[in-house]
């Protein structure tokens, strides 16, 4: 495979374009041409399609797109480009079962296929949402470890304040907050009884490369997942490449994060699906990842649970999982927040779609992951149970479930309820949900079981 040194070389010497020209003269026209060429058409009636040929066409379009547009380095204004042969070679030699975690919690992350009975990896947490202070940070992480038995890895929230002081990116407070994030997360997982559980989102509080690398010195391990992001669409900058240089030298796992935007340069769901495949290749070739974490997201609503995003997630996941052994996660964001029926319906729909289509899951961001303290361990717990409950289910059955769930909430997405804060629906001392939330969880679970989701408990 093309080496990381060669990637840097291409970032410094590749074809030169202004960012605007890359967007509008390179990326957009080629994507549109390929959507047409491969006859990729969104079908709102079937958010989880069962069309293998369509999935394979989406994959071919994604490979052709990436061979033409590569990844744009915004610091140099140059395209990091690969030939189709280099892409094919990378697909052959990409990691297929990286081991994350320590001790009893060390486990290989396996690539899956559509309708696979292989249990999905459950990467759980708050999807990077913000927690108001360090005390709640520790409390919720301990609860993730102790309350979610199906958790395979954890995401840590963003810390909003340290020692009562609001953290501002780009100041020394960011570095101090990142250090505390590492120290406190490890301690919380130890308290929760799962000290070997991998932290898989690096440090959500980190905005800069400096803060991420500094914070990591205080507790992150090479066996964790070092989440490193791209910029929409198919762009990367030196800060992220700096982080990759560091993680690779450490022997750590890069978890390469991507987020094609529906409504942005990708256009509609068809363009998002093809771009998601191109991002998969970027994660292998440019980012030297051990896994891809991707979340096609709706530009207007800031969530992943709309019908059109569902279709794009499903068909691109099928495309990737049928044609690549490089493991990937779908991260979901719900519009509604904790202790609302809508949030639980949305998460069930999103997780069902991802797992049946061949992905593992990260769950996830609730209330769009934008409201402070609006998350509890209940949502990722139900997500992990649904994920295991639909493994092996057919796409056609999953499609019926997704359609049913969509009708329950999709009209409410523009005005979704924010739900309750952590302390309002969770007992922080017993680390258990409040009675009202417990009852809602049981009610929704019974409904989901009637739809055919086979819960193990």
């Amino acid at each position, binding site marked *: 495979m093309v080496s990381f040194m060669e990637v840097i070389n291409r970032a410094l010497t590749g074809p030169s374009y202004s960012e605007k020209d890359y*967007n*509008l003269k390179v990326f*957009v026209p080629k994507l549109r041409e390929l959507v047409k060429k491969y006859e990729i058409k969104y079908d709102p009636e079937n958010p989880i399609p069962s069309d293998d040929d369509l999935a394979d066409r989406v994959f071919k379009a994604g490979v052709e797109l990436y061979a033409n547009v590569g990844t744009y380095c915004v610091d140099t204004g140059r395209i990091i480009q690969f030939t189709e042969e280099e892409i094919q070679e990378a697909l052959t030699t990409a990691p297929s079962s990286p081991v994350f975690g320590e001790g009893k919690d060390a486990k290989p992350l396996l690539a899956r296929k559509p309708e696979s009975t292989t249990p999905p990896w459950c990467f759980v947490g708050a999807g990077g*949402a*913000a927690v108001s202070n360090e005390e709640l940070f520790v409390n919720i992480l301990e609860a993730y470890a102790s309350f979610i038995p199906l958790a395979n890895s954890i995401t840590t929230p*963003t810390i*909003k304040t340290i020692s009562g002081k*609001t*953290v*501002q*990116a*780009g100041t020394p407070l*960011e570095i101090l*907050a990142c250090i505390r994030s590492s120290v406190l997360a490890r301690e919380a997982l130890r308290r929760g009884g799962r000290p070997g559980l991998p932290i898989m989102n690096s440090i959500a*509080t980190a*905005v*800069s490369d400096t803060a991420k690398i500094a914070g990591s010195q205080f507790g992150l391990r090479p066996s964790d997942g070092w989440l490193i992001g791209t*910029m*929409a669409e198919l762009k990367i*900058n030196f800060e992220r490449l700096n982080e990759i240089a560091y993680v690779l030298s450490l022997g750590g796992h890069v978890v390469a994060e991507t987020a094609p*935007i*529906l*409504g*942005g*340069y*990708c*256009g*509609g769901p068809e363009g998002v699906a093809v771009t998601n495949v191109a991002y998969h290749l970027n994660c292998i070739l440019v980012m030297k990842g051990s896994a891809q974490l991707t979340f096609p997201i709706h*530009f*207007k609503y*800031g969530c992943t649970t709309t019908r059109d995003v569902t279709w794009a997630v499903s068909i691109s996941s099928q495309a990737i999982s049928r044609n690549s052994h490089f493991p990937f996660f779908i991260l979901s964001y719900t519009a509604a927040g904790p202790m609302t029926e809508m949030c639980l319906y949305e998460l069930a729909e999103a997780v069902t779609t991802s797992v049946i289509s061949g992905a593992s899951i990260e769950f996830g961001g609730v209330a*769009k992951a*934008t*409201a*402070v303290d609006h998350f509890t361990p209940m949502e990722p717990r139900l997500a992990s149970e649904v994920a295991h409950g639909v493994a092996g289910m057919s796409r056609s059955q999953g499609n019926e479930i997704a359609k049913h769930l969509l009708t329950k909430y999709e009209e409410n997405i523009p005005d979704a309820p924010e739900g309750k804060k952590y302390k309002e629906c969770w007992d922080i001392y017993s680390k258990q949900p409040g009675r009202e939330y417990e009852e809602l969880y049981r009610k929704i679970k019974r409904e989901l079981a009637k739809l055919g989701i086979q819960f193990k408990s």
Partner: protein
Amino acid sequence: MKEQIFEDLFKAIVELDREKVQRAANELVREKLNPLEGIEKGLSKGMEVIGDKFERLEIYLPELLMAADIFNAAMEILGPQISAGEKNKIKKGTVVIGTVKGDIHEIGKDIVAMLLETAGFAVHNLGKDVPASTFLEEAEKVNADIIAMSSLLTTTMEHQRELIDILKERGKRDRYMVMIGGAPTSLAWADEIGADGYGETARDAVSVALELLSKKRNI
């Protein structure tokens, strides 16, 4: 004839037809029609339709950018026909816009900038990762009416507060209207930090900017 040319300008924007807009704009100049009327009844009306379509996601970002480009192509022809005095009369106000320090998300902010521009504002787009001091320097330099800040991260939204605090400390708060936006922000956040306005969507942002401007001019 006159109405036909305005209709052609309107349709050219809606149909994203650059040649048509240039033809219609040249025709308007040849017929010695009022260019301001052409902008108002043709181009701006077309941009409103484009904005509505984008809001409903019937079209996407590339079409929106294309429409703005076509609008500007027409303005290159009509602009020289408008006197400086008239330009000032139609200019709605001046906005300095950017994504705050530490934050590199700018697609949403760029859409707001573009819609503000086509709505008649003079827009100074500072890009991403913009320190508070740069917002302030530029606002002073161009005598801005509005400072607009975007933030997509909970750890960078504090920089919106920072700028407002600096304006207060330097006794300059009353000189500018300040509006904010971005996924983790809200009306409640705008109130908390003392911003004058909050736009949830790009279209909202334009309405908010217009409201703020009229408020500022009536103070």
